[in-house]
Structures are given as structure tokens and as C-alpha cells.
């Protein structure tokens, strides 16, 4: 158990909390699960399966495959930009929190960034569950008013002339950023290109790795 369990939504620090508070939440969840199991509302085996899905099958590696395929297959890229939900389903990714997908493309002129200011909406089938920072008050408050400042927090600086386009996911449409394919990757296979794609580059808070950054 790490000391991150109680990074409060309103704070950005990872506090060390006294263990009585920590164990209070742990005990509460444990007791709740046993109540719901005893009442016959949940099957613990279903909980295990769901957790396993989200820890092992549903994650950013799925989105990485989508981006790498779009970079290496122009016809797929075209389908992805016109009907993202169907194109993503071609790779067998679909469902909860990705029912209605839109892919937004970064270009030299425009950089896209995705946020959910009201909660934590995020395209699960392609990116998994959102990281803590995505759900945190600093990101949710500043992504829409100071995205360049947010990018600086991630160590990213874009030219002053690049337009910044922020997508606030206030409905059930889920957005995936298609980052720009790095230069110097001509002739690379989808598998090689996948090495360059990062989770943050698909949210718009990062850029893909450059060819020189991977071994």
C-alpha cells in the first residue's frame, strides 16, 4: 500500500496520512463488500474479473495500437478520422466509456488536449482508467484556462503560434488525440512506431517519443 491513497482531489501533493485514517477507508470498503455479498447483491468473483479486465486488458496499450496503425496505414487513418468508434472496434476495442469515440488529430498548426472539468470522463477502451492527475483539481481547473501552463507542468513547450484546442468531455463523447508521427520514422512498421506512442501523447499533455529516445 502506497502513501498515495489519500491524495485529496483538491490537493496536488501526495500526503502521508496517519494510518488510522487510511485503514478507516480500507475497513469501510471491506465491510461494505461483505454486506453486499451477504445480501446477494454482488458476486465477489465478478468483482475479481472486472478488476482483472481493467488491470490487464483495458489500458493505454490499446490506444497505442490504434495510433501506430493510423500512422502506418493511411486507409485506416481515414476510417479513424471519419468513424472512430468503428475503426477502433476493428482492433477489438469497444464498450464502457468508449461508446462514442472521436479522434482529434494534431498538426503543425494545432495541438489538441482532452479534459473532463466536471468529473473524470476518459476513453477507457483505448486508454484504460485515468491517472490521478487527470482526475485532480489542478488539471481539471487549468486545462481549459491555461493549457500552455499545464503543458509546462509536463515539460512540454509548443511554439507560440501553435493553436491550442482543448476538448472538455462534458457528454458521453470520448476523445482520443492522434499525435503527429515523429520525423525520421519513414518505413517503420506499426510495431516499431508503437514504441514511440505514449499515453500522455494520446491525451494531449505529452508528445510522442522521438526515434532517438528509444533503444
Amino acid at each position, binding site marked *: 500500500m*502506497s502513501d498515495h491513497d489519500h491524495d485529496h482531489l483538491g*490537493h496536488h501533493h501526495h500526503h502521508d496520512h496517519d494510518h488510522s485514517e487510511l485503514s478507516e477507508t480500507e475497513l469501510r470498503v471491506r465491510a461494505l463488500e461483505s454486506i453486499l455479498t451477504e445480501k446477494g447483491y454482488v458476486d465477489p468473483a465478478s468483482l475479481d*474479473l472486472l*478488476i482483472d479486465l481493467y488491470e490487464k486488458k483495458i489500458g493505454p496499450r490499446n490506444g497505442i495500437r490504434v495510433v501506430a496503425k493510423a500512422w502506418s496505414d493511411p486507409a485506416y487513418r481515414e476510417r479513424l478520422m471519419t468513424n472512430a468508434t468503428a475503426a477502433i472496434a476493428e482492433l477489438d476495442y469497444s464498450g464502457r466509456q468508449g461508446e462514442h469515440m472521436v479522434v482529434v488529430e494534431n498538426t503543425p498548426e494545432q495541438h489538441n488536449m482532452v479534459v473532463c472539468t466536471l468529473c473524470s470522463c476518459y476513453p477507457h477502451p483505448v486508454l484504460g482508467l485515468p491517472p490521478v492527475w487527470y482526475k485532480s483539481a489542478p488539471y481539471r481547473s487549468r486545462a481549459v484556462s491555461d493549457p500552455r501552463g*499545464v503543458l509546462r507542468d509536463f515539460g512540454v513547450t509548443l511554439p507560440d503560434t501553435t493553436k491550442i484546442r482543448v476538448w472538455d468531455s462534458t457528454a*458521453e463523447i470520448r476523445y482520443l488525440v492522434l499525435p503527429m508521427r515523429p520525423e525520421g520514422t519513414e518505413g517503420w512498421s506499426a510495431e516499431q512506431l508503437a514504441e514511440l506512442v505514449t499515453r500522455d501523447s494520446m491525451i494531449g499533455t505529452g508528445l510522442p517519443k522521438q526515434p532517438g529516445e528509444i533503444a
Partner: protein
Amino acid sequence: MDGAHDMGGAKGFGPVVPEPNEPVFHGDWERRAFALTVTMARPGGWNIDMSRFARENRPPEDYLSKSYFQIWLAGLETLMVERGLVTREEIEAGKVLSPPKPGVKPIAPNEVTPAIRRGGPTEREAKAPAMFAVGDTVRMRDIHPVTHTRLPQYVRGHLGTIELNHGCHVFPDTNSLGKGEDPQWLYTVRFDGPELWGKGTDPTLSVSVDAWESYLERET
């Protein structure tokens, strides 16, 4: 509701601090709280909009002092107590004190993967033509519902441009209250940075929200 969850443009929260090599869950209780919340929705009989409202409908100091999954846990408790599935006393005592609500059927293990892969599409058949076309200028209504809404405060009253039409979707403001899906046309509305944040704002910035038709009025 104009609650602490509606964070767009708020000041003072400090920098974004990414955690290197972050795990999917921080500790086992987060795994269980997440899974309980997801698997209780169907047997419990609530929808995603009711869940969101149960999480955000709390005093700002409570919302801001809880971690993300603590808010989920609190929301789950509220939804279950409201429907008579468990009592507050049972939650506080940590043990069963009353008989189960009859007719509640758990999600079986073989239903988990199909349910996640299916998800909950919100698009519905259109009953009337769309009022707005891509390129139209619209003004966001300045409304302040005390119940659930997905119209963030920072865009209310501001002028934007319709950029995408996503078809008709379930309307959260009514669905969260159990008053029906009332599907409405859903649009992506784009705003220039200075329109939202005033003179001196980075002119390269634009921001969009996804907005149901009743959030919009025509600007002539």
C-alpha cells in the same frame, strides 16, 4: 448544480503533478471500491447520470477533501441507501442488520466481460430535426439548476460556434432525476479563449464543450 466538482477555470489548485509509473489502482481498497460501484449499478437500478450526481452532490469541503475513489465510495453508499438496499446503520456498523431487498440479482461472472464490451451507448433516434447547424453561432444559456447538469459554469452566457453534431443523446439533467431519457441533439460548441477568459487571453486558445440543444440559444 454549481458545486465544487465544476472546476473549469478555478484558481489556486497549483501545478499538475504526474506520478511516474502510476499503477491502475493505489491499494486494494480502490480496486474493490471501483468494482463494487460498477457492478452495483444494474442490480441497484441507477444510471450513470444518477451516479455522477450522487458523487458531486456534497458540500465543497467534503468533495475537495476526499480522494477520487473515496468520492466514488460515498456516492455508492448514497445510491444504495436511497433505494433501501442497505441502511446507514449497516454501513456504519459494517455488518448486515436487515434483510436484503427482494429481487436484486447480482451480475454473474460470465456477464462481466460482455457488459463492459457493450457499455451503455447514449445515442437515440431523433424525434425532431436539429435546431442548429455546424457553423452556427450560439449563446450558452445562463442556467443554475440545483440538480445535475453537464453545462459547466465557465461557458454559461458565452458565445460559441457549433463545430460537430453528434446526433441525439440521453439528456443527463432529466435522466439523473429518473424523469426519463429525453434525448436531445448534442453538439460540440467551440469558444475562443478570450471569449471565456477575457482580454489578454492567449489568442491561440480555443475550448469546446459538448452541449445538449436545450443548453443553447440562437444568437442573432
